[in-house]
């Protein structure tokens, strides 16, 4: 799948947040789900993921080689599969973020003055 497949995938909000959650370190399924909720909470509308949605996104991101499986282990009788960003995934997340920032700047520049709601605090509020 080419570049357009990747940018289309990144425009999917769930995929974007999954990549963002994985940009810190490798994580397993539930940790990704939890961190997607935590990260997206700071944008004002938390993304609450169902497990099938998460695994659908992980499948697609894996197939696009934006993420990869690092390891699998069994903890307390539970199988865990750890994923991490590939170089390609890191670059794609960076590109998408730059694109979103540009979009915000343009929108901001054409909006009448005085209509600035709080939009600056986006990704940093992990709250833990």
């Amino acid at each position: 799948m080419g570049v357009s497949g990747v940018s289309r995938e990144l425009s999917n909000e769930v995929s974007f947040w999954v990549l963002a959650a994985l940009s810190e370190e490798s994580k397993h399924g539930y940790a990704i789900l939890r961190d997607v909720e935590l990260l997206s909470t700071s944008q004002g509308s938390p993304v609450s993921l169902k497990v099938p949605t998460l695994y659908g996104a992980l499948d697609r991101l894996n197939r696009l080689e934006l993420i990869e499986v690092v390891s699998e282990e069994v903890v307390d009788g539970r199988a865990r599969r750890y994923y991490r960003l590939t170089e390609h995934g890191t670059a794609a997340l960076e590109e998408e973020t730059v694109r979103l920032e540009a979009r915000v700047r343009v929108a901001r520049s054409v909006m009448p003055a005085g209509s600035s709601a709080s939009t600056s605090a986006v990704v940093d509020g992990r709250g833990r």
Partner: protein
Amino acid sequence: MTDAKARRRYQRILRWYPKEWRVQHEQVMLGTLLDMDDARGRRGPTFGEAWSLRLDGLRRRLRPVDDGLAGRRRRMTPAIVGLVIVGCVSVGGLAAAAAPAALSDEGRAQLLATCLNDKGWATEIGADGGVAVEYQSDQEAQHLADAESCITTLQLNRIAKPSRAQLEAHYAKLLAAQRCLEERGYATPKAPDRSTFVVSGGTWSPFAALPNGTAEDLAQIERACPQPDLQP
């Protein structure tokens, strides 16, 4: 529901996924589901979650690769696709007569088979209540469209909603469990009134605020105060 019981319940639901998928992913997804239960202080899926899993499994049977792109179909070799349909149904005139919740699994499978027959597919109902359809690879897109249409018409994803009476009975059991937990010193979230609980589809649980702990801690709490099961 105990940890082992929740695990079995999830395993039953994960049988909706195709075998090839289960070989690769079942244990990992099961682990994630159980991790999520721990974090939320409960055991087993809600109705909505159970159906979200079943439908996802069904979609993967019908469209083995979820590439996120509508309209792109992967070619399949001639295959038998078994659909296990559990739920109640309304198909045109058939529905009105039957009280949905009263239908047996066989009755539900029969209705799905009838819907597929009407669309020209030969079906066979298996001993497990599944509906098997045989088709050639070049019929796959049509089969998928027809099966999805039947599932929509049958309101599969709405079927799992518990009845008002089930929710009211469940509410009473949850209140008893709440008393049990509080007598043992556990904090519980405030109960909504009964009608709010019913309208919300039963989203409140006194088990939601239990402290994080090991599976054994939770199992111990549940031995003292069993978690009622909403499944009929």
